């Protein structure tokens, strides 16, 4: 079986980027992925989502009235996480994500993640933050939007993961 291939630019790896790279308007490396039925089912089961519209074609089409089974939201969240940390590298620490679902992603779709930096700041604890506006589309269909707040190291020695309790304000 040919595994689906994704196209992404992981230019950062473990070292990752620092906050100075998070300039408003900077585009994140695009990610596109050809979705198959396996993609949908694997993602649903990985997130312990047993509902039939994510694995049962007849249920999805005849009961839900959708064209096919479709990606579940927790799995889309995991895709957003991957998209963000492909850009940040391992030191990037996501603090917050908000999704708004608009349409579904089906087998046979090529979903395309795109995003840009909306702004950056250093909070009162000294933690550096980037705001991101992200979307996933299939062709002309906007399927989901996401805003995210991700902590980035302020310099090469900083590690947002070391922050706890009062020093972590997501």
């Amino acid at each position, binding site marked *: 079986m040919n595994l689906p291939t*994704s196209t992404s630019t992981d230019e950062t*790896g473990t070292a990752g980027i620092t906050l100075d790279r998070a300039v408003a308007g900077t585009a994140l490396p695009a990610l596109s992925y050809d979705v198959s039925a396996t*993609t949908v089912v694997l993602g649903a*089961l990985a997130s312990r989502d047993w509902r039939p519209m994510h694995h049962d074609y007849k249920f999805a089409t005849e009961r839900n009235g959708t064209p096919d089974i479709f990606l579940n939201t927790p*799995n889309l969240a*995991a895709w957003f996480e991957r998209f963000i940390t*492909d850009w940040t590298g391992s030191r990037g620490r996501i603090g917050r994500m908000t999704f708004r679902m*608009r349409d579904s992603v089906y087998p046979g779709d090529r979903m395309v993640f795109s995003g840009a930096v909306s702004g950056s700041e250093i909070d009162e604890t000294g933690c550096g933050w980037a705001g991101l506006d992200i979307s996933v589309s299939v062709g002309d269909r906007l399927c989901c939007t996401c805003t995210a707040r991700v902590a980035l190291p302020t310099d090469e020695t900083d*590690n947002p993961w070391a922050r706890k309790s009062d020093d972590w304000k997501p």
Partner: protein
Amino acid sequence: MIDDSALDNQALPERTGPPKNAGLPEHIAALIGEPQYPETATFPVEMSYAYNTLSATENGNPLYWDSEVADELTDGMTMPVATLSLWMRPHRWEPGATKEQVALKAHFDLKEQLDLPEAIMSDNTMILHEPVRPGDVISHHQVLRSISDAKTTKLGTGRFWVIDVEYHNQNGELVGVESYTGFGYKRTAPSTSTAPSTSPENS
């Protein structure tokens, strides 16, 4: 699928300030701000679920695959942050269960008690605090934050509500909060389309 096209330009419930609960039965209004359904996971956090999620999304973040990187950055392995809700999702079946287990019971309660048979979820916010680690045992509870006045959208007439789910580890540390905005409603006219015949909550 969560089709919120009908929600565009609709005012979502405010997260702060006095709750809008005009016309709400007192026993439902009294639930606002009260923790409900405290539960503890029936199985500990395990790395295999992380690998399933990482594999499903082809996520090669070394933080989750390389223990040396994890030791350096996070003092050991942690779970992908998007798996926050995974640990409290019920088994499809377990001994003694008489029906399918559902997550977010507060949401289904509101549908039933307000006689709003249909519902959608529009927004979902995830706030991440302490990392979740292998061996953790997660607990959670649900908090109804607000219920709107009656609203009419293209879907029908009903109410918006916001429910937070707060997750803690076995040490009582907050590991995350999920906030769901739902809209429970009655259809305004018989549907002639192929719209979903079941409620697509949390899809």
